[in-house]
């Protein structure tokens, strides 16, 4: 009887378990490889220059339409994409998406504090680069890339800001 069993099942019980665990170890190492490849792919993807997107240029205002410390609303690139153009006190121009990154309320320019302010939940963004100064917004405001062509101000693209840590 014993001889029959040994012929039918020639692998020792201990050895059988050992082999199973070794196969499991190999599987876990394979999983480890998959996770490492995924992590490296995410790191490479995070370094891609994907935050600037160009659209068809559009004339948004004349230079004479604004004075330092004043703002003007416009739409870019689609009619429903609300934006705000600001002439800073030093005379330079900046433009941002007008939708707050919290709950999409329209932001307004506050010349006395030189910032963009969302009245819904007291969020505020820097006029310099759109980063979050206060409140619940999780991301900076996307910046509209501008070009001055003669007396006209043109919007040429959108630059998504990277979230601050």
């Amino acid at each position, binding site marked *: 009887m014993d001889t029959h069993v040994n012929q039918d099942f020639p692998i*020792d019980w*201990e*050895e059988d378990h*050992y082999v199973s*665990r*070794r196969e*499991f*170890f*190999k599987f*876990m*190492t394979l*999983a*480890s*490889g998959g*996770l*490492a490849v*995924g*992590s*490296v792919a*995410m*790191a490479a*993807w*995070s*370094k891609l220059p994907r935050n600037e997107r160009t659209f068809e240029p559009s004339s948004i205002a004349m230079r004479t339409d604004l004075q330092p410390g004043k703002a003007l609303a416009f739409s870019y690139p689609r009619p429903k994409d609300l934006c705000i153009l600001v002439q800073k006190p030093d005379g330079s121009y900046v433009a941002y998406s007008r939708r707050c990154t919290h709950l999409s309320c329209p932001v307004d320019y506050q010349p006395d504090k030189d910032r963009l302010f969302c009245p819904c939940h007291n969020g505020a963004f820097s006029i310099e680069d759109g980063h979050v100064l206060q409140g619940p917004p*999780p*991301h900076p405001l996307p910046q509209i890339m501008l070009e001055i062509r003669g007396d006209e101000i043109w919007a040429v693209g959108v630059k*998504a800001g*990277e*979230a601050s*840590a």
Partner: protein
Amino acid sequence: MKDPRAMRRRQKSPVFVALLLFNLVLVLIQLWLFVSVLEDILASHFAMAIPAAVTSAVILTVNIWMLRGIDRMDANG
């Protein structure tokens, strides 16, 4: 009389289990890093992506090194 090969297996078993547990812990750390970085990237935070990738690659190297060690252990009987 007991099979001497099976005896050796029994002696190697605790070492193997320790390595297997260590491997499991390392893979869990890798999984945690992967999910954390994925969440960060979806929230537009990219600062942790490269350190996590380097750590994950180091863990993979350790796991492969342990697997080769087990293969060597088997080859030596």
